[in-house]
C-alpha cells in the first residue's frame, strides 16, 4: 500500500489564528508546508456593485465599511478621487484635519496589529493591552465623528465638521499616554527573547523580487526599500511634516515588526506636529444638492499609505450622478494571495498565522 506523503489542512475560515474570514488550504508534509492556496469569498459584500446604483454622496457612506481595521484610507481615497475628477478644491484646514485622522487611524490599526501579531504567537497579554489602548483612539474618533470604527467623516469637499472644543488637548494627552505604553510594549514584546526567536528568519521575502511581486508598505520597507506613498506621491500636507520612513534589511517577521514599531513612534510625532501647526479656516467646500450632483466624465487613480501599505482607488465617472466604477485595491489583495502563497512555501504550520499577521493580511479588502 502506497503511503501518502502530503496531507491537506484547511486553515479557516473558522480558525482563531486566521486574520479574518478567509481560508488557506495547506498541503503539508509533516509540519512543513509544500503548497498554500488562498481561498476567499466569505466576506464579499458587493460594495463596488452597490456603488454603481447609489449617487456620489450615498456611495461615500459605504466605502469605510470595506476595510475593518483601517476604514479611513477608503474615505480619503474616495473623496480625493471625486475631487480630482471634478476639480474641487479642498480648504487647507480640512487637509490638515484629514491628515490628523489618517495618522490616528494608523495608530489604531497598528495597535490592532500589535494584538494580532502577538496573539498568533501565544503572547496573549499584548492583545489585552493594545486593543484596550486602541479604545482611547476610538474614543477620540467617537467624539470627532460620532462613530468609533466607521466614521463617514472625510467626504468630497473636506470633512464633515470642525474639531470639537478641547479636542486637540485630548489628542495630545492620548499621544503622551501611547508613547509611555510603547516602553511597556518594548519590554513585553520587542525585548522578549521568545518573540525574537519566533520572529527572526521567519516569513522571509526575497528583496530582489519584492517590488516585482507587488509588495508594499511595512513588508517592503522591511526588505530595505524606502518606499512610502506619503513621500513618493505626496498628498494632503505630508510635505509640511517632518518624519522619517524607517527601513530594515532582514525582510522577515522581526524586521517588519521593527518597522511598524518605529512608524508608531513617527505617527505620534506627526500628530503633535499637526496639532501645533494646523491653520484656522473653513473645513468644507460644500457640494451641490446631492440628488442632482453630477461629476464630469473622467477617471482618477489615487492612493494613500495605510498602515498596511499602498491603498488605491480607481474611480470612473460617466458624467452622471452615480459612479460608473469604483475599484478598490488594498495591500492585502497581493499580500494575502500571491505573496502569502509564495512565502508560506517551506514554512512551519505553527508559523502560518504569525506570517499572515506580519504581512497585514486583511480579507475584507481582498474581496470587498
Amino acid at each position, binding site marked *: 500500500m502506497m503511503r501518502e506523503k502530503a496531507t491537506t489542512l484547511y486553515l479557516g475560515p473558522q480558525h482563531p489564528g486566521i486574520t479574518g474570514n478567509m481560508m488557506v488550504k495547506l498541503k503539508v508534509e509533516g509540519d512543513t508546508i509544500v503548497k498554500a492556496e488562498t481561498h476567499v*469569498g466569505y466576506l*464579499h459584500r458587493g460594495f463596488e456593485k452597490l456603488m454603481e446604483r447609489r449617487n456620489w454622496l450615498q456611495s461615500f457612506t459605504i466605502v469605510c465599511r470595506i476595510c475593518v481595521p483601517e476604514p479611513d484610507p477608503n474615505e480619503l481615497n474616495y473623496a480625493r478621487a471625486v475631487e480630482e475628477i471634478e476639480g474641487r478644491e479642498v480648504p487647507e484646514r480640512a487637509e490638515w484635519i484629514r491628515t490628523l485622522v489618517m495618522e490616528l487611524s494608523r495608530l489604531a490599526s497598528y495597535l490592532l496589529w500589535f494584538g494580532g501579531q502577538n496573539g498568533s504567537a501565544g503572547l496573549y497579554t499584548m492583545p489585552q493591552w493594545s486593543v484596550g489602548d486602541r479604545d482611547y483612539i476610538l474614543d477620540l474618533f467617537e467624539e470627532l465623528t460620532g462613530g468609533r470604527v466607521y466614521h463617514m467623516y472625510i467626504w468630497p469637499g473636506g470633512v464633515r465638521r470642525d474639531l470639537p472644543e478641547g479636542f486637540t488637548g485630548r489628542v495630545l494627552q492620548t499621544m503622551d499616554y501611547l508613547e509611555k505604553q510603547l516602553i511597556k510594549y518594548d519590554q513585553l514584546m520587542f525585548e522578549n527573547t521568545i518573540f525574537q526567536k519566533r520572529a527572526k528568519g521567519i516569513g522571509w521575502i526575497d528583496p530582489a523580487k519584492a517590488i516585482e511581486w*507587488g509588495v508594499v508598505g511595512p513588508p517592503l520597507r522591511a526588505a530595505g526599500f524606502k518606499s512610502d506613498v506619503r513621500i513618493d506621491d505626496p498628498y494632503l500636507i505630508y510635505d509640511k511634516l517632518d518624519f522619517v520612513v524607517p527601513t530594515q534589511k532582514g525582510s522577515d517577521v522581526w524586521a517588519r515588526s521593527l518597522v511598524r514599531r518605529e512608524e508608531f513612534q513617527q505617527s505620534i510625532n506627526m500628530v503633535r506636529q499637526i496639532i501645533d501647526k494646523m491653520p484656522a479656516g473653513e473645513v468644507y467646500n460644500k457640494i451641490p444638492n446631492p440628488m442632482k450632483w453630477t461629476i464630469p466624465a473622467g477617471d482618477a487613480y489615487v492612493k494613500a499609505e495605510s498602515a498596511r501599505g*499602498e491603498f488605491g482607488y480607481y474611480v470612473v465617472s460617466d458624467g452622471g450622478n452615480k459612479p460608473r466604477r469604483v*475599484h478598490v485595491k488594498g495591500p492585502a489583495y497581493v499580500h494575502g494571495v500571491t505573496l502569502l502563497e509564495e512565502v508560506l512555501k517551506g514554512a512551519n504550520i505553527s508559523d502560518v498565522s504569525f506570517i499572515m499577521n506580519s504581512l497585514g493580511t486583511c480579507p475584507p479588502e481582498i474581496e470587498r
Partner: protein
Amino acid sequence: MTEDKHIKEQKIVDQLSGTFQNLTGKVKRERRVEVSVEKKLIPSVLSYVKDQLTFTHMSHMSCVDWLEDEHFELVYILWSPELKVQLLVKTLINRENPVIENVDMIWGQLNTYQREIREMYGIQFTGLVGREEFVLEDWDEMPPMRRDFDTAEYIKDVFFERPGRDGAKDVREVIATRSGEEIPELAKKYSRD
C-alpha cells in the same frame, strides 16, 4: 514652472507613442500619465514599460463595462519607483467576444486580478491558468459585475421572502396608506433605480 513639472511625464508619452503603433497618450497631471493601445499590443507594452521605462510596480488592474458602447475597458495601473510616475495603460475589448491575452508571466500577481475580472465580467484571458472560482462559489449566472446583470431579478429568483414579509411594500407606500397622506416629492426622488 508648470511646464517644467511635466517634462518627465511628457517624455514617457513621447517614448511610448514613438515605439508603438496607434498608441495615444497624454499627461493627466503631475505624476499621472495615461496611454491607450490596441489589445494585441498589451503584452508588448507592459513588458516594455517594465523592462525599459522602470515601471516595475504593478499597482492595480481594473475593468469598466461600457455597455452602451458595447465594449469593456481594461486598465493596467503601473508605478515607477525611480521616476515616481503612475502610468495607466488602457485598452478596449469587444463585449460580444471578450478575449485578451493573459499577462501574468510579466507580474505574477496579475493572476489574481485576471481571475477576478474573468469571474466578475466574463472576460477570457488566453493562457490564464488558475482556479476558476475566486470569490463566487458554484456561480452559473451572468458575470455579476456586468451592467446588464439584473440584481433585483436575481434576488427575486434566488431568495424567498421571510414569513410575514410576503408582499412587502415600499415603506413610503405603507406610510402613505396608513396616514392618508401623499408621498412627498422629496421622498419620490429616492428611487430604487
